[in-house]
């Protein structure tokens, strides 16, 4: 989905605030979303968040630990100004567990955002499309701003849009794999037909890949491992911010069309004149 004026199927032109990412009823200037696991310490995580300029971070319910401040990811994040919290359901194996986790997350954080993340196989962490759809539908009906983490499947993406999701978050490659935009062809199809923001989540390794995703027309990217596991997470967070900004600017500027065919000096169709 592009910002600015766009035409819906119905032919109604709707005006959006240019240059903002709108999720539910909330607008964000930054198009970089951060995951909060995998950091070596809270201080690095906070500095990385600040360096990235992000306004939306996701945190796993299973890392909420109200009993022990030292082990709690939620509290330090909640204290950040200008950053919205999005609890996620990582660890849930099915829709039932995800819904329960989402409700607990909303109760504890006061945020209606939820990243629905259901990966029944805890090793490769691939999202379960069937359970994710069921949970997303139920949570959207319950008033959540739902961002489902999904396989790069154009049909599923449209079904989730119809179910009331605020965005879809297809994977670029497996979580933590650094495989980049290995699903690029499918992502292009999802972007082409989506009326809700498309956010590439998982798999990115480098800011250039984030830029490439934005150039393709993604509305935002979500990054965790690539920042947390970098040699210098804070510097990498800044680099990703620049990558996203560059890619978005390039997309808005309109890339020159790609063409393999040289333009003939004597046009083939000159006989028509």
């Amino acid at each position, binding site marked *: 989905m592009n910002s600015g004026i766009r035409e819906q199927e119905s032919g109604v032109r709707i005006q959006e605030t240019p240059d903002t990412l709108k999720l539910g009823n909330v607008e964000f200037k930054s198009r970089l979303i951060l995951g909060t*696991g*995998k*950091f*070596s*310490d*809270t201080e690095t995580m906070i500095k990385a968040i600040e360096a990235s300029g992000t306004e939306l971070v996701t945190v796993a*319910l*299973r*890392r*909420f*630990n109200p*009993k*022990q401040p*030292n*082990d*709690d990811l939620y509290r330090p994040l909640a204290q950040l100004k200008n950053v919205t919290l999005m609890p996620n359901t990582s*660890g*849930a*194996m099915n829709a039932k*567990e995800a819904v*329960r*986790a989402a409700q*607990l997350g909303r109760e504890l954080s006061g945020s209606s955002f939820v990243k629905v993340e259901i990966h*029944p*196989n*805890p*090793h*490769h*962490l691939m999202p379960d499309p069937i359970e994710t759809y069921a949970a997303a539908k139920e949570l959207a009906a319950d008033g959540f701003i739902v961002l489902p983490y999904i396989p790069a499947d154009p049909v599923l993406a449209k079904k989730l849009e119809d179910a009331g999701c605020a965005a879809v978050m297809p994977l670029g490659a497996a979580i*933590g*794999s*650094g495989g980049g935009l290995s699903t690029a062809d499918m992502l292009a199809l999802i972007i082409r037909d989506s009326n809700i923001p498309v956010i590439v989540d998982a798999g990115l390794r480098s800011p250039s890949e984030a830029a490439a995703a934005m150039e393709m027309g993604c509305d935002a990217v979500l990054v965790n*491992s690539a920042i*947390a*596991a970098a040699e210098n997470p804070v510097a990498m967070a800044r680099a990703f911010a620049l990558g996203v900004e560059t890619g978005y600017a390039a997309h808005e500027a309109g890339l020159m069309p790609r063409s393999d065919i040289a333009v003939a000096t004597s046009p083939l169709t000159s006989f028509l004149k």
Partner: protein
Amino acid sequence: MKNLPIWLDPEPWLNRKFSPTEIQTALGAESPSEETLAALLSPAAVDFLEPMAARAQALTRRHFGRTVQLYVPLYLSSYCPGGCAYCGFASDRNTARHKLSLEQVETELAALEKMGFEEILLLTGERTPEADFDYVRDCVERAARRFHSVNIEMFPMSETEYRELAEAGCSGVTLYQETYHPETYAAMHRWGPKSDFSERLEAPARALAGGQRFAGLGALLGLSDPLFDCLALYRHARHLQKTHWQSGLTISFPRIQREAGDFTPPHPVSNSQLAQIVFAFRIVLPDVPLVLSTRETPALRDGLAGLGINKMSVASKTTVGGYAEEGSEDVSRRSRAKAEGQFDVSDARGVEEFCAMLRSKNLEPVFKNWDAAYR
């Protein structure tokens, strides 16, 4: 058991020789296999310990970030009818036996909760009238009221029993085969229910079928040829990944040290061999949590944290209970631990000291990595 099932038998990979080039290939393997593991465990790979460590660290960081997950064991009972030659709880050992009453269990759980733990591992010996299934279920229920993650390391159970424990709040079952080598297994497990190789081998699959989310596997290094046991352990894990695709596995590397009774391991594994094994497993199973307990020394644990290992026990006591008395530690208690523990703890550091070490290595200690919502 005379012959191992075909999915487990490591025989085809046992007598391979590997060249340095083949070790290099194994190090960068995109689809690791038994062949990769055999190469990385071979004598030729000893010269590649440093690049193996670097690869193990990179993979650990990629999949688990700069974190180490912490848990604590609680021994509920030391009664055991088993005849395991290497174990301090074996029935022919002259150690005093203890079992926590349910009131004592509460006290111990409260003490551990106060120490900040969120993941607990409850242990017993083999099934006895003193510590039977009903007792175990009662303990699990109590633990589940206080901890988000409750796991057990006990006697093999039936699928129905595992299901009942899942309903009581147990998320995972750790059960080491000890050795996958049938003759060694028979020699080591001299009498008692544990002498049944197959009963034990099939228990993790029953646990997963019974609704347990995690299965912890391991071989007790030192009992048998480590190459044999490591290959079989890897094959066991891969088999379960295929048959129970929704399950989480963890792999531990317990190493037999001198126990009460002065058992001498027939195939001792050195520190550098143990490190090689850990690195090799990280490379062939990049997304499986690898565990190291307080059996090992501080120096080795500090070195391997984040270098393949991403989950560790801390502040462990291998005697029955013992956490609630913390603070009244004196000479007599320490000598009791020496005489009555299942094995000697080599890393006696407390939670704070251990976490400070992890932080100094730029690793975050994680206590809560699960939620009771997922039960």
